[in-house]
């Protein structure tokens, strides 16, 4: 469910320019990436003044490590990956995350209490039952657009 695959745009463009016979040729390129996203979800927002949060799992079936370097979303004037940390005194804080490396054959989850997609300056409310497009930007140039289902304000995970 909600599994989206993306080819590196760069690889595709190079393949077309070089007039390689098929697209599968580009897929076989050694530095190619095959990144997919599973179980995206966001909580509905209450109005537009508060930042929204979204979660998902990234899988890297390529041969090389790739990093998530940024986010873009029309619904947010400022989308970025944040990390929640809780220190030994039990104090939680939220800061912009560094680039997140996803090793070849590995997964990284954006999930409550860890990483989240922070959607600041909402341009429209996140309405339960709707979806919105979120683009993930990777270190190899891959741009992967995901449709994120919006669950209830009190959702606990991708199942609601």
């Amino acid at each position, binding site marked *: 469910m909600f599994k989206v695959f993306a080819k590196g745009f760069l690889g595709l463009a190079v393949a077309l320019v070089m007039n390689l016979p098929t697209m599968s040729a580009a897929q076989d390129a050694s530095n190619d990436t095959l990144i997919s996203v599973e179980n995206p979800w966001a909580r509905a927002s*209450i109005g537009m003044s508060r930042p929204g949060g979204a979660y998902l799992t990234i899988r890297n079936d390529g041969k090389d490590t790739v990093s998530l370097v940024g986010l873009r979303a029309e619904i947010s004037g400022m989308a970025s990956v*944040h990390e929640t940390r*809780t220190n030994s*005194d039990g104090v939680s804080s*939220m800061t912009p995350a560094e680039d997140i490396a996803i090793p070849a054959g590995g997964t990284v989850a954006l999930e409550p209490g860890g990483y989240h997609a922070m959607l*600041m300056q909402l341009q429209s409310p996140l309405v339960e039952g709707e979806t919105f497009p979120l683009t993930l930007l990777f270190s190899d140039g891959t741009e992967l657009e995901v449709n994120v289902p919006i669950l209830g304000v009190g959702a606990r995970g991708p199942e609601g």
Partner: protein
Amino acid sequence: MGKAAKFIAIGAVAIVFALFIGWWQVDGPGAGPVSGERPLPLTAMDFNLTDQDGADVSPASLIGQPSLVFFGFTYCPDVCPTTLSDISGWLDDLGTEAEDLNTILITVDPDRDTVETLAEYVSYFHPQIQGWTGSEDQIADAAEGFRATYEKVEGADGGYTMNHTAGVFLFDATGRFVSIIDYHEPREFAVPKIRRAMQDRAEGAES
């Protein structure tokens, strides 16, 4: 030893070990805050706040029933909705058992979290969850009693966020501090801790 006997023996050891780990984390030395000071008993706290209905509340409002108290703010996209959802799940698990458990969110962001804002926000979660706010000084007084800390941090977008103590404080019906449920603690640990605080109430009532 026969194969079956060996199997049973290993199983028994595993069960005893699991029970020990459970005891350690729920009732044993593993319980309570890892570091920092423990909250005062509610009877020793001194603060005045306003609840989501506009009523005056104080620590005395919590005495007589066991209580879950935690700090947060409604502009928080991750920790606070996760905590409120977790607590809603615990309350669902406890069902009628938890009917008279005080469950209180105290905001650390009174500038944005007015009575009306909090009332709307908590209405999206379990109906038992209340939202308390007050002036900056009143919030500071409350945090002091719970030995909770918070700090305003400017964000990149010109807004701000709040760092804050994220654990859930558990008190028995007499106001005695029982334990902390850590942020995002699995419900198999959280729910027994709440049951224990509620048992303390039963014992307190008998004595």
